[in-house]
């Protein structure tokens, strides 16, 4: 393992120190339990939008704290859900009368820990709701499993829901909006290499020189199947087929296309893949009217990309366009 780190156990806190130094105008970082809140938190009369999960996916979630997006983020250890007390600290620092929405990616650990935190907050009289996002079409959706993972759609959900909260929507409305987005966003990811968890010290999986892990998650969990390396054209088409085969995106639909680097894939390849996806969607009559390209939900240094499609309507597009000012996403301000 070669990484620019000191002790594996210190990675998250030391990285947070960098974040705090660079973005002191945007975020306030607290340690032990680790949580990151807006510099101006709590914002009066506003629904707090809070998320979190294992670290190693930056800028998700800590890099999305700021005006127009998250009020707080709770980073756990690398690939490990944070504990309820950390989530509770984030809730306390940001949540007032208007209540809070917890955005939870669908992993057993995240669901259990956030659930516990929400119970604790409710016991203190706060109105805290949760929405679980599970947009990964790689995993068969079945009541006999843990269900689908939350992946790239989380970024889009946090931006849009954050904008709704910023314009003053009620908790009921924000929650309803979040559930609506969960219903119309789908993702698929691929890996060209494995991440190495710092305390594990070895790659999470071995991939042959001519192999791609198709349907990879964001934790180095093995994917749906292993396929031989293929051209970007073929790979992106396979990815789009997986997404549109799941939730039918139809000719005439307006969509947001999000092409994400998993951390180790550089811009030249991410943009190349995005260009292909644009062409293939245009061929199907699906209209890409908003886009996001870059490393926004990473998996440590894993090479690979994911593609997320969100069906848009006028409201979602407007909320997407609304100003946002966070370490990881900024426009209009």
């Amino acid at each position: 393992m070669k990484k620019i780190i000191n002790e594996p156990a210190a990675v998250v806190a030391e990285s947070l120190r960098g974040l705090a130094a660079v973005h002191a105008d945007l975020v306030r970082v607290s340690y032990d339990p680790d949580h990151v809140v807006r510099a101006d938190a709590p914002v009066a009369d506003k629904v707090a939008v809070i998320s979190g999960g294992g670290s190693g996916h930056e800028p998700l979630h800590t890099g999305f704290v700021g005006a127009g997006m998250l009020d707080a983020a709770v980073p756990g250890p690398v690939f490990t859900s944070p504990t309820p007390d950390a989530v509770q600290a984030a809730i306390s620092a940001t949540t007032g009368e208007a209540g809070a929405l917890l955005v939870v990616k669908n992993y057993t650990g995240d669901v259990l820990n956030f659930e516990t935190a929400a119970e604790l907050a409710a016991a203190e009289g706060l109105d805290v709701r949760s929405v679980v996002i599970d947009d990964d079409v790689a995993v068969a959706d079945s009541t006999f499993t843990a269900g689908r993972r939350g992946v790239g759609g989380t970024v889009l959900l946090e931006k849009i829901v954050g904008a709704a909260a910023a314009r003053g929507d009620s908790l009921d409305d924000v929650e309803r909006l979040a559930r609506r987005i969960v219903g119309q966003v789908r993702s698929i990811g691929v890996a060209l290499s494995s991440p190495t968890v710092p305390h594990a010290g070895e790659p999470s999986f071995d991939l042959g020189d001519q192999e791609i892990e198709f349907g990879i998650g964001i934790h180095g969990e093995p994917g749906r199947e292993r396929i031989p390396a293929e051209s970007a054209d073929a790979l992106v088409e396979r990815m789009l087929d997986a997404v549109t085969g799941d939730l039918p995106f139809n000719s005439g639909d307006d969509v947001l296309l999000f092409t994400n680097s998993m951390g180790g894939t550089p811009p030249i390849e991410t943009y190349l893949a995005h260009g292909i996806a644009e062409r293939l969607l245009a061929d199907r009559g699906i209209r890409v009217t908003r886009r996001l390209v870059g490393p926004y939900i990473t998996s440590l240094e894993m090479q690979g990309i994911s593609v997320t499609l969100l069906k848009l309507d006028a409201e979602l597009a407007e909320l997407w366009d609304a100003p946002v000012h966070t370490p990881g996403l900024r426009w209009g301000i």
Partner: protein
Amino acid sequence: MGCDAKRVAEVLRAGAATVADHKAELIDLDRAIGDADHGENLDRGFAAILSTLDSGVPETPGAVLKIAATTLISKVGGAAGPLYGTAFLRAATKLGDRSELDAEAVVAGLEAALEGVVARGKAEVGDATMVDALSPAVEAARQAHADGGDAAAVLGAAADAAKEGADSTVPLVARKGRASYLGERSVGHADPGATSTALLLRSFAETVS
């Protein structure tokens, strides 16, 4: 002879040592079908239990287990944190303020722990989770108690059954937790949480006897 609070603290210390010893092995198991953190997560939690116990052991076994529970909940994270935390918490609650644990109390504690894990995680036997170790452990404990065994015998039987249960996860298709994303590809691997449950019960049994 029963088990007082001091002995329960020793049991937990032994568990912490076991987890530390097997940390790499548990990480490896989780790397194969999960996200390579189970050993690290548990070790972080049990190390924290150790330092809490260093600053004083409460009066009753239940209080000691409650410390373990809250420490695990606030230190482990992931799936294992709430699940193990709930297990210890339910056992602690069940044991109330008894000052010593006999065989019957051990059985009751294990039963409560299993109920807690199932209540939180909704897994059934055969889903390839820690339930596959804990559930047969409870059965075996009940049987050992019925057969007149003492606390040590009950824990020993539980540990044996848990080990068998953990091994039984190897040929299974995981249906809960992170390994379930793998579908058929989860076959051929022991579940990390079932394995850690068996290891912990073994070290508890050895410390009590």
